């Protein structure tokens, strides 16, 4: 199975994960600073900023785009409960 590295900048920790893993599955276990609300892409609480590897995450869905817009997301922000890791990336809480 292809692997990828996701780095949580706030706790300087990199985790090797199988490609396709959602960020939420890793960040909660490791205690990174990204926090969660509804966990289903609706509330915008888990917004994170992607520092590197923007193109190594799955594309945001139309619904995620809408939530990001409504929560005044800046460029390269994503919802950690929705984004799946396809390749190496570096993230931090938005």
């Amino acid at each position, binding site marked *: 199975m292809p692997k990828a*590295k996701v780095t949580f900048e706030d*706790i*300087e*920790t*990199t*985790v*090797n*994960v*199988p490609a396709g*893993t959602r960020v939420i*599955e*890793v960040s*909660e*276990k*490791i*205690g*990174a*600073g990204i*926090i*969660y*609300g509804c966990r289903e892409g609706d509330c915008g*609480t888990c917004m994170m900023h992607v520092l590197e590897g923007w193109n190594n995450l799955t594309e945001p869905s139309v619904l995620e785009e809408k*939530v990001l817009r*409504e*929560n*005044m997301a800046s460029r390269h922000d994503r919802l950690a409960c929705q984004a799946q890791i396809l390749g190496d990336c570096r993230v931090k*809480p938005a």
Partner: protein
Amino acid sequence: MDAASHRDGIEIARGVHWIGALDPTLRTFDIILRTANGTTYNAYLVRGETGVAVIDTVKAEFADEFFARLESLARYEEIRVIVLNHLEPDHTGALPELMRRAPQAALYISTRATSMLKALLKPADGVLEYTTVSTGDEVDLGGRTLRFLHTPFLHWPDTQCTYLVEEKVLFSGDVFGCHYCDSRLFNDRVGDFRFSFDYYYAHIMRPFKAQVMDALRLIEPLPLATIAPTHGPILRERPRRYVTHYRELSTSSLSDRLDEDTRSLAVFYMSSYGNTARMAEAVYAGADELEGVRVSLYDLEGGEIGPFVDLIEAADGLAFGSPTINGDAVKPVWDLLSSLAVVNLKGKVGAAFGSYGWSGEAVRMIEDRMRGLKMRVPVPGLRVKLIPTEEELAECREFGRSLALALVGPREARVIELADLA
């Protein structure tokens, strides 16, 4: 003029009227708040040379009173603007009917209110017209200027304040409000509502102290003749006192910090045979070895929920020790962990430990609860079967050290496998 004796609007400033509703018999608001004096749902009407603005509405059951007061002052076709400072149903209950009666009126909401407005109105054809506004945006009513202040999270993401420049009236939404119904309406005429004011802050605004401070930075420079909140008395007599009081209420808990660099860790425990207590003492001792961390140890058996909640609010890190009884953490731990809606826990470091006899579920359950409360859980929980040995107590000390390290760093970059986290 007494608002209970008639259904007309009541002037609060030149050309500005209260058109709200009285709810004197309410005793429980929104499940979480008690009120000995009921509440009011305050809405306001501002008349300019080129049109009328309605600022907020009332709870649906009180719509008749709201419309009667509105009709005493204006015709529906005169309404050009509807401002919604906060979309909670107690302020938007009469909105659908108002929009039906004044279809030409433009809706003004904060930039964060869009999704809530759509959820509230659920237009059948999906079409909804509104304008989002933020700090500095203005609406001109002809000689009357409504200026918006973006004040999110007071106490919902959507909240904003609206300032009437010419009359120096701040329509503050729930900020500076309280559940206190007195038909004399104004703070210089009603009974003593100080308890209700502080109680409201403690239950509604307290989790958002940082956002209150942000809002005060926008509000404090404004000349203020009147603060017109959405609940409770209208504050026209020395309104700035309430602004100052909000600043005091929002800063008090910060004053007990030792210094900017010191982090505090509070260790709470409950023990039946003394095993979890011994673990707690070892966790405390381990964390205390690190410079820059002030560690405190509390036996839940010996205290009340209220002061513990105060301690939790002020702490950077929290550890909970619980034995497992019948597959669950013990009630005093859950009692405390279910009393934290009034404080901000986001990003605090949490950890759990405990001794157990058979299955030891408590630690994982407490960790899940802390994650649910938006805390970080960077150090995996520690469980010990029955009486901790010297080696296991050493593990507890190491657990305490790791917890303290998570608070003060410095962090070294590390690489781990996802499978190792399970």
